[in-house]
């Protein structure tokens, strides 16, 4: 399957690491940066922590999509989370996606999704109805429900659970080593079997150093997932060779500057 999008998730990462990753994801043309923990077990996966981090990531980027994985932990009621969705999508200029972890109570998922969808209103219980503002910048914020599947997790649209899943999330254990063409072909096949058009690589904290990880995802994995079937193997080899040359000292001054800036912030 070609034309796949690439997502990068850092479950457990703190807000500073998220902002650094957002810069890198944008720099390396990764399609979506996902925040939060699908298993809702790691630190920093409370929905409020995730929404605050998402706002910071959105504020320092202009085109990478920002995905939030909501854990459903009871730190905020559905109305407050729906308001957060409106604010963060406005800050992001319409780049927000929302996924609910498998542990979220379906009733809560439904509550948040109904408020976040148009018309965004909230009943007071006495016949009056109030607008939930601000509305998101997007006419429809993508709302997904993550479900366990043989290939990892798949995300189905909340209002179309029987439809084609738009995302597939898998743990990424290879670290910063560029994957082989056969491994990339396997990824494409898994996505093809699930029907997803975005592959999210989960790199739980403590993740490998962000710069080399983002570089591998952006220069090797994402192009290989986008490429046509017959182009993929050669592209992956070329991209891996280019990456190895670049990291051996032949990167452009601009790239070195970018890498060193983020490396300092990691330190």
């Amino acid at each position, binding site marked *: 399957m070609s034309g796949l999008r690439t997502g990068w998730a850092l479950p457990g990462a*703190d*807000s*500073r690491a998220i*902002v650094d990753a957002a810069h890198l994801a944008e720099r390396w043309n990764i399609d979506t940066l996902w925040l939060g923990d699908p298993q809702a077990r790691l630190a*920093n996966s*409370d*929905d*409020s*922590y995730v*929404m*605050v*981090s*998402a*706002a*910071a*990531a*959105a*504020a*320092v980027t202009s085109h990478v999509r920002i995905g939030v994985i909501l854990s459903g932990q*009871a*730190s*905020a*009621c559905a*109305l*407050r989370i729906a*308001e*957060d969705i*409106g*604010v*963060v999508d*406005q*800050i992001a*200029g*319409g780049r927000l996606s929302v996924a609910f972890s498998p542990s979220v109570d379906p009733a809560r998922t439904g509550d948040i999704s109904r408020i976040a969808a148009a018309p965004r209103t*909230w009943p*007071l*219980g*006495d016949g*009056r109805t*109030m*607008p*939930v*503002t*601000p*509305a998101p*910048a997007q006419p429809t914020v993508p709302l997904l429900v993550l479900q366990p599947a043989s290939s990892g997790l798949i995300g189905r649209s909340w209002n179309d659970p029987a439809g084609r899943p738009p995302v597939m999330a898998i743990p990424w254990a290879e670290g910063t080593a560029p994957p082989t063409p056969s491994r990339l072909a396997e990824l494409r096949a898994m996505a093809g079997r699930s029907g997803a058009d975005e592959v999210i690589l989960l790199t739980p904290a403590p993740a490998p150093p962000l710069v080399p990880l983002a570089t591998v995802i952006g220069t090797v994995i994402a192009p290989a997932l986008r490429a046509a079937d017959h182009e993929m193997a050669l592209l992956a080899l070329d991209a891996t060779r280019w990456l190895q040359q670049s990291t051996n000292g032949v990167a452009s001054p601009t790239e070195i500057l970018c890498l060193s800036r983020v490396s300092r912030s990691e330190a």
Partner: protein
Amino acid sequence: MGLWTMQSTYVQPKPAGALYREAATEARRAEELGFDSVWLGEHHLSYDGFCPSLLPAAASILARTERIAVGTGILVLPFHTAQRVAEGCAALETLAPGRFRAGLGLGYREVEFAAAGLSVAQRVGLLDERLGALLAPPLRDRLGATQVWLGTGSVAGAARAARHGASVLVQPATGRRRLSEMYGTWQGQTPGAAAGQPARFGAMADVWVEDDERQLEWVTARVRETWRQYSNFWCDDPVTEQDRREMLVEQMSGTAVLGSPAKVTDHLAGLIELGVDSLVLRIRFDGLDGRVLDRCLERLSAEVLPQLRMGR
């Protein structure tokens, strides 16, 4: 410096996204001009998009600035669980260590309480309960160096802040006598430090620096219109309470200090003489933005703040 509320009102409709971007840009400008902090206001379920989610909004400003602090003035604690606030503070503290001020308060707008399944009568109990939870283990550990402030206009509120070791942020339109009583009460109860920071006694004030009489008329009209709209929040039924609404407009806009640098300096120096050690100046009125706002910020920075910092 405050209050940024991201409203798109009938006075000056704007896309919400532009307002959030402007807030960050104006915070950077305030930072350049030497202001210490910017503050954001919270309301819910309003046609104008008044910011309901202050912690994400604060994150977007902290991420785009280097030094200036960002505060909530105020976050209505009865509408948020203590865990939600603690988790948001934890994210902000990691993002910008020591630069977030958690200004917390009671709230008052009936429909917002109804939407949360609460009554206004529950607000004091909820504030105390949640403030206590926030400032005790395990949630306190999530706050890090976050300063905790309590927004209030009453002596009882100042006493509550002292009990919790919180800083105070006195609401605008609080009279000098009451402010003095609040300070005496707060100071007399020997405030500690809520999160490892020395407690402070701050006050909010509506100000605008302008010498030209015609410009001042224009500014005054916009301040009045800001309060006309805002006064709707204090009326159960603004349609049938027109007289009360107009009275509120007179009362609130009358407390704003609009005029020459000397006039504004005199007023603020008077607050400092009463014990105030931090000033949050509201200069973000409806329709007063862009170049006119920048000009006001510049004049405050150049002609008012130096006088106050030198103790005149």
